[in-house]
């Protein structure tokens, strides 16, 4: 199990930084899967930049967890703590192509409200080359 967590400044450059963060997983997951992760993370962080109503002090939290069978990624925007969660679900804000790509590539994905806005996805690792230590 491998976990990564970074906090990114809420600016457009965060999208590329989020992709660079995933470079840590090279060698741990297959390259095709890593490409999928890069693309999906780009979509989610882009969504945060576009619709998160974030200011310069805000940080976007990127969490990635690589387990035996799945990879899970969460992108979390800060809530401001003063206003109730937006009535309009974030899901509708991941507009058009971004949502479509996510739905095509992720095995599961979702949006959690609450104080902040969390968008997450999971990808199954089946089909990847198994570790040599596993019994065949």
């Amino acid at each position: 199990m491998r976990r990564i967590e970074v906090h990114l400044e809420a600016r457009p450059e965060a999208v590329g930084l989020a992709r660079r963060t995933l470079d840590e997983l090279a060698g741990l997951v297959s390259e095709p899967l890593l490409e999928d992760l890069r693309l999906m993370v780009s979509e989610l962080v882009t969504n945060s930049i576009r619709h998160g109503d974030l200011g310069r002090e805000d940080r976007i939290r990127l969490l990635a967890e690589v387990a035996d069978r799945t990879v899970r990624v969460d992108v979390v925007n800060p809530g401001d703590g003063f206003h109730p969660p937006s009535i309009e679900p974030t899901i509708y804000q991941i507009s058009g192509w971004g949502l479509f790509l996510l739905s095509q590539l992720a095995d599961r994905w979702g949006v959690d409200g609450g104080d902040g806005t969390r968008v997450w996805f999971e990808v199954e690792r089946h089909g990847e080359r198994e570790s040599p230590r596993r019994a065949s």
Partner: protein
Amino acid sequence: MSDELEVEVRGAEESVQVALLGELDISSAERLENELRRVEEKDPRMLVLDLRTLRFIDSTGLRIVLGADLRARRDGRKLVIVRGPEPVHRVFRIALLDRRLEFVDDPDSAGGAV
């Protein structure tokens, strides 16, 4: 301002080539859009978008390419895209745009494209 994407414009008059180098996402989207419109304003007969040196594209980039395609159709201009490496082209494929847009393998084919 992002330094992740470079845009190289070559040619003039009838056919202009716009080559993308690096990675295209929201941080470079506006700059690319401006560059494309600047090229389009000169009214070339053909615009060749060369993605061979592009390493990454996401839905933001797709939208820009689609915008260029729409404007080309509107203006009576030909837009041809030189296919990028697999991580780039697969995004067009997943979005079912690999058939809708005109792709070639190299820029020289663009001239002969019907």
